[in-house]
């Protein structure tokens, strides 16, 4: 039997591992002949080490600690000098194997025991395979949910995609262009959306919400409430006859409240499923209990409208759950000094996205809002109309509510880049318009982003370093007040349109969902990943994964990458039966299994 020497490095004074207990544990392990604590500031001398190894006749060295690899070269050389096999230097890395949890010392002991026995820790410590239900639930039908769904379904596994609104696509479907390539967002997204719809392995549950989860990782029972769509999806041919006749209009969510939609509507022409739905809050028939209106039912050529349809609750069985619930914008009206909600021509970023979208309410024209009479409510409203006058100057304000201890302390990560994109779109569509960008720090961190920023600057946008303090109205125009830090002077520019790059917050309902699923959240409200660097797609709950913005602000490329990575974890879990993260067994069990494996190895 090999004679093993264990060298334990503490490396950090703040470690919660009980090192004395660890050392005596190591000394009692079979085959361990020598245990030495290296101390807080170890000095490793190869010659004296070799001497020590020769004296103790050691065949195998185990270096334990948070970053034991640091000493591997010295020990390898020492072992070689002493005439041993240099391949017999093993590392027991506590941090790598998650000895940061509550039972740190036990975890450290297990890691150490595995290294002494010469078997890989993950091989020993992963719990016994359980039977995992092959279906997967994905919560949220934005680009993250769509990507994960396609990856998993393309691998031949069943996917349930639950989406709260009437169509999948999420925020990305609202965008016109993506940064930094200025690709058409719809050209990337809509084929994927259609693929989801047509996929035989994907069951789409739009207008639905997860309301309860039972069971354990591998065998979840999920309750989903399917809100009544009141239109038969399979029969609807999207002829628009119902919308034309519907007398009720309300603000359109998909068009960011820039224009109206009817009570029976389709969010946008490319919606998936490509069918209409009824807003029960607005529909006169539903609100009156079936006594008023109901004209759409008579008008429908396919007779597919049933205004009395009721909500249903369905229960589905899945093995894994992927959270891709996305984000919302911070309520810009909270930051009163920017005048959102007070001045009609102060827009949020999403409102501008819709305005500049060729399929949006203005047909892609950038305009200032004009007053229109709402005939039903008999009030004057500010509406983005294609007939509205185009702005001569536009101010884009970064970091609205982001990096601000009063609102969101964190950076929302995408605003700098989409704001630059806005500047490009403004200058592209209105070449004579002046465009100001107010920023604090320009965060152009991704591939091609820095170059994109330089390009926008070269195109002639005025980039002002300095956060804006105020938007006021003077002589019928908006005035943006700020300080130009670089030029050390105060500035105020009269503009026709102000776009606020509003910070991002977790989607509404994130807290409730976290409670239902038992998934922890960050102080900022986003779902917590298991390990920021090592396991960014897992959560503390086995079998539940996160993808996209619901884990923290990120751009589309990162979202899609994470969504694909999630699929890998889900598929691995389905095919091996192992459940997500390395949920450790008890120490005694690990010892037993490690000893057994070692016997088999020898």
């Amino acid at each position, binding site marked *: 039997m090999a004679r093993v020497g264990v060298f334990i490095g503490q490396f950090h004074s703040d470690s919660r591992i009980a090192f004395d207990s660890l050392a005596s544990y190591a000394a009692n392990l079979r085959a361990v002949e020598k245990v030495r604590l290296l101390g807080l500031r170890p000095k490793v001398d190869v010659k004296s080490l070799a001497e020590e190894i020769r004296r103790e006749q050691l065949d195998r060295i185990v270096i334990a600690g948070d970053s034991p690899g640091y000493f591997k070269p010295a020990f390898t050389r020492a072992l070689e000098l002493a005439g041993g096999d240099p391949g017999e230097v093993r590392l027991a890395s506590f941090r790598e194997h998650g000895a940061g949890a509550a039972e740190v010392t036990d975890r450290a002991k297990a890691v150490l025991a595995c290294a002494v026995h010469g078997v890989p820790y993950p091989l020993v410590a992963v719990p016994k395979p359980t039977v995992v239900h092959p279906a997967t639930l994905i919560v949220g039908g934005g680009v993250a949910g769509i990507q994960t769904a396609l990856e998993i379904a393309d691998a031949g596994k069943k996917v349930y995609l639950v989406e709260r609104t009437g169509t999948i696509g999420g925020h990305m479907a609202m965008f016109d262009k993506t940064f930094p390539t200025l690709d058409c967002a719809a050209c990337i997204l809509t084929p994927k959306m259609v693929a989801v719809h047509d996929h035989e392995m994907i069951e789409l549950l739009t207008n639905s919400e997860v309301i309860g989860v039972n069971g354990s990782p591998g065998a979840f029972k999920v309750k989903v409430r399917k809100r009544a769509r009141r239109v038969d999806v399979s029969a609807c041919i999207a002829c628009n006859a119902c919308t034309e006749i519907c007398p009720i209009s309300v603000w359109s969510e998909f068009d960011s409240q820039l224009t109206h939609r009817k009570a029976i509507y389709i969010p946008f022409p490319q919606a998936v499923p490509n069918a209409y739905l009824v807003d029960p809050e607005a529909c006169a028939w539903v609100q009156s209990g079936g006594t008023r209106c109901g004209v759409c039912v008579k008008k429908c050529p396919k007779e597919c409208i049933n205004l009395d349809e009721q909500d249903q609750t369905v229960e589905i069985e899945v093995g894994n759950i992927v959270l891709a619930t996305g984000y919302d914008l911070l309520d810009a009206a909270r930051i009163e*000094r920017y005048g959102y909600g007070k001045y009609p021509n102060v827009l949020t970023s999403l409102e501008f996205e819709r305005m500049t979208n060729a399929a949006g309410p203005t047909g892609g024209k950038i305009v200032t809002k004009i007053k229109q009479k709402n005939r039903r409510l008999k009030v004057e409203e500010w509406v983005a109309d294609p007939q509205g006058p185009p702005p001569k100057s536009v101010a884009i304000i970064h*970091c609205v509510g982001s*990096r*601000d*201890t*009063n609102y969101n302390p964190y950076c929302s990560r995408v605003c700098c880049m989409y704001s630059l994109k806005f500047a490009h779109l403004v200058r592209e569509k209105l070449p004579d318009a*002046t465009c100001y960008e107010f920023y*604090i*720090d320009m965060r152009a961190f991704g591939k091609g982003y820095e170059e994109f920023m*330089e390009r926008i*600057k*070269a195109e*002639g946008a*005025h*980039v*002002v*370093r*300095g*956060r*804006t*303090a*105020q938007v006021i109205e003077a002589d019928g125009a908006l005035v943006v*007040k*700020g*300080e*130009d*830090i670089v*030029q*050390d*002077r*105060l*500035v*105020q*520019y009269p503009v026709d349109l102000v776009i606020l790059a509003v910070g991002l917050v977790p989607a509404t309902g994130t807290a409730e969902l976290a409670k239902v699923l038992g998934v922890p959240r960050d102080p900022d409200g986003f779902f917590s990943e298991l390990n920021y660097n090592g396991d960014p797609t897992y959560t503390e709950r086995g079998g539940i994964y996160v993808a996209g913005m619901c884990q923290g602000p990120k751009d589309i490329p990162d979202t899609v990458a994470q969504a694909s990575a999630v699929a890998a974890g889900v598929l691995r879990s389905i095919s091996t039966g192992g459940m997500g993260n390395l949920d450790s067994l008890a120490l005694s069990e690990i010892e037993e299994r490690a000893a057994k494996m070692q016997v088999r190895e020898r």
Partner: protein
Amino acid sequence: MAIRVNPKLINELETYGAADVQNCYHCGNCSAACPFSKEPFLIPRRSMRHLQMGLEEKLKGTLEPWLCYYCGECSQQCPRGAEPGETMMSLRRWLTSRYDLTGVARLFYRSWKAELVALILVSLATMVGFLTMGFGFGHGSLDVYAGAGALFPDHLVHLLDLGLAGLLAAVLLTNAIRMWWLTTGRNRGLHISLWSYVKNAFLLPYHFLTQARYSQCEKKAPWLTHLAIFGSWVTMEVLVILLLERFHHQETIWAVHVFGYLATIGLLGGTTYALVGRLRKRETHYKHTHPTDWMFLILIAGAAFTGIVQHASYRWFGLDSVANIAYVIHMMFVVPLLAVQIPFSKLSHLAFRPLAMYLAAVHADALADVRVGVAQTEPARLAA
């Protein structure tokens, strides 16, 4: 001239009450939000920057902290919690200690214990002095408050008042001259005409008496509180120094007493409002209270209260002996307030504030080629 950097400047300022200066990431929100920020004086971010960079000489020569009245708008809007308003306040304390050549102001601002000891010592000295005067030289009686045979004869007290006033004026004048030198005199880049000095001279009494600039803050209550305390205090000084003998006249002279009563109400009301505000900490400018602020307010409130006791016992109840004792205690509040706080501490701003407004106008004249007011033009395009 080489620029010297003092890397420990922030640490030094922290001993004057500044905190979180390093949090600032220079977004410029504060300067844009400040109602007083006008070129060439960009308040408060420029000073924050100089402070972070340790540019001690530049800060010594700046007028900007004196142009801030701490309405708190900058601190409220600050996205980093860097407290620019409080930094301006601390800079004013630091500058006061720079203008003072003796180093006493520095000691008092950095150690409240030192200032408290000084206040107590001056207070005790005042007591000893008055007792010596009363029983030693005056041959007076404890039972007589005014007129012949009074314990503290009017002419002696009057002499003391004038002497103290003269001394304080001399100290303040030296400090004011030093302020002028640091901010203006030594600055070779400024070419100031004599006419500019003459033309703007009216600003000195104007700002001294009205604190008009303070009234431009969005919130008016702090200005009114300040004006109440200041106006009452000046009224009292005028009454006591110039009209003391009339004050102690046996007959009640309403022309004098009406002002006296009004001033007392102003002092008590103003200090109570400020003390309550500082205890409740609801408003931004009351959130941080330096020990010197407490001492200042407590001394004024104490002086006002003992003044009332003295007045009431003499005028209303005819208790001359009580009035004499109350008077000594009253002076034990008043003399330390004047002798310590005017030359070396918070109260010195009564000279520096108006002087700063005056010098700011003079500077603005000299920098006429730098646009005053807010720029309306577009920024130069950044090179691609």
